[in-house]
């Protein structure tokens, strides 16, 4: 089930700490683009990747369960097949949202998250959705589908 504009706004406003599973330290990778963007827009990023110690100035953890702080959103850059155990971990650490990135579509992970009461977003980029709803994407001619007579705040 797709999340509407109001739902996406609520998720992006209420989640402040985002664990990015599969975050790459390579500057030109999409996961790095997205995480750097989110940092610049006031989110705290917690990298999750066993290959690195630190990315974008934040300590990197091998698994979600290793993160000592409270995580609001688990944002996943992994193959769809890898998703179900990550969804279970997201539930176990008390996250409020499981976000599967553009091209990641595990229906099972979606079901696990929803059944545990988490918000679940699939096949969307958290950076693109943020820029779509809070400004930025409109500057590069993308059809944001936002129709409103209220200014963005």
């Amino acid at each position, binding site marked *: 089930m797709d999340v*509407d504009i109001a739902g996406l706004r609520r998720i992006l406003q209420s989640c402040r700490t985002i664990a990015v599973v599969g975050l790459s330290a390579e500057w030109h990778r999409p996961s790095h683009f997205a995480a750097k963007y989110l940092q610049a827009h006031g989110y705290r990023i917690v990298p999750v990747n066993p290959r690195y110690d630190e990315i974008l100035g934040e300590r990197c953890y091998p698994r979600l369960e290793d993160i000592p702080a409270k995580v609001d959103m688990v944002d996943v850059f992994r193959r769809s097949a890898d998703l179900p155990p990550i969804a279970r971990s997201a539930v176990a650490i008390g996250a409020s949202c499981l976000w599967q990135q553009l*091209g990641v579509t595990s229906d099972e992970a979606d079901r696990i998250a929803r059944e545990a009461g988490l918000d679940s977003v699939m096949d969307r980029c958290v950076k693109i959705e943020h820029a779509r709803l809070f400004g*930025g994407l409109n*500057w*590069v*001619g*993308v059809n944001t589908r936002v*129709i409103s*007579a209220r200014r963005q705040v």
Partner: protein
Amino acid sequence: MADHVFKPETLAIHAGQIPDTQTGARALPIYQTTSFVFDSADHAASLFNLQTFGNVYSRLSNPTVAALEERVAALEDGRAAVACSSGMAAEALALTTLLQAGDHVVAAGALYGGTVTMLAVNLRKFGIETSFVDARDPQAFAAAMRPNTRAVFAESLGNPSLVVLDIAAVAEVAHAHGVPLIVDNTVPSPFLCNPLALGADIVVHSATKYLAGHGTTLGGIVVESGRFPWDNGRFPGMTEPSPGYHGVKFHETFGDFGFTMRCRMEGLRVFGAALAPTSAWQILQGVETLPLRMERHGANALAVARYLRDDPRVSFVHYPGLPDHPQHALLRRQMRGASGLLSFGVQGGIERGIRFIESAQFMSHLVNIGDTRTLISHPASTTHRQLDEAQQRAAGVLPQTIRISVGLEHVDDILWDIDQALAAASRA
């Protein structure tokens, strides 16, 4: 929950522009600036790396131009759009972003003359070859495909042939070969026809015409559907690191608007055919009334077509809005209406046709279309003059063809001017 789906009349007024964040201005501000400040060196680096969205320089993006881009993307139900300085610039931007030396294009023969020249002469000079085929025959497109074909190009409604493209059938031909269908949708405008919904992958417009509608301002736009599989192995420029933009992989990084970003960051940045903010603003004033205007253009044109069809001084009329036009059923299936363009011939030959044009009182003899004013022209000696006679025939231009872009004056007055000009032309 599904988001509410807004109709074109609403999108034409609202899409792409919400009240200004800083001032609350309801109408679109004109951001008349070449450049935009960076908050820090790191912010500048992020912008140049495309890691954050923002404005750098108005050749790449500008908030006023962006409002036009999003509005037309919304009206075409596309994913994204990029505006440029004219309709020809839009075609050049789409084609040069997509193609390289050694590639081949299959194009409709029934095209605007400038487009035929771009494909047959200018792109050929850079090693891109084009085969022209009968736009009415999807099989002709299929027969012309080669292993190195990388694009299919046609007009949804031919200018001035008024040939109707079977968009779904030709899209199927293109997709069977793993290449995109590019449709120039200038003549119907996005209010009458949405080629992306019928299977096209990229739409280009001369925004100078019906989108602006007032004959004051040049502009063009490229819209992508977001559905073409650029990673099918035929478009390394979309999937491999871009040597033109420090290694960015446009498809991987921007997903379903990667082609638009590549047009912007490679094509606009390097070739520079950007749209001026004031021009974008002027075009947008027109777009707000596009649905109303297209209804009236169509109603007036149908009345003119009926009048000409029944007049013994006229030898032929091409207007697919007439029920006896051979492509009328196809038009009805694909479009909300037949637009305001039609072509016809004056009985007795080319000299009488020219006398018709020169006898008009308020119909303007010039080579634009889509103005509020009724416009008349003789394509064989103007818009299609650079083409040889075979190319002219393929483009639907006979020596005696007269093109009318029917305006928004009262239809009785338009018919009066046509009648008196025909009377003057028919006096021996």
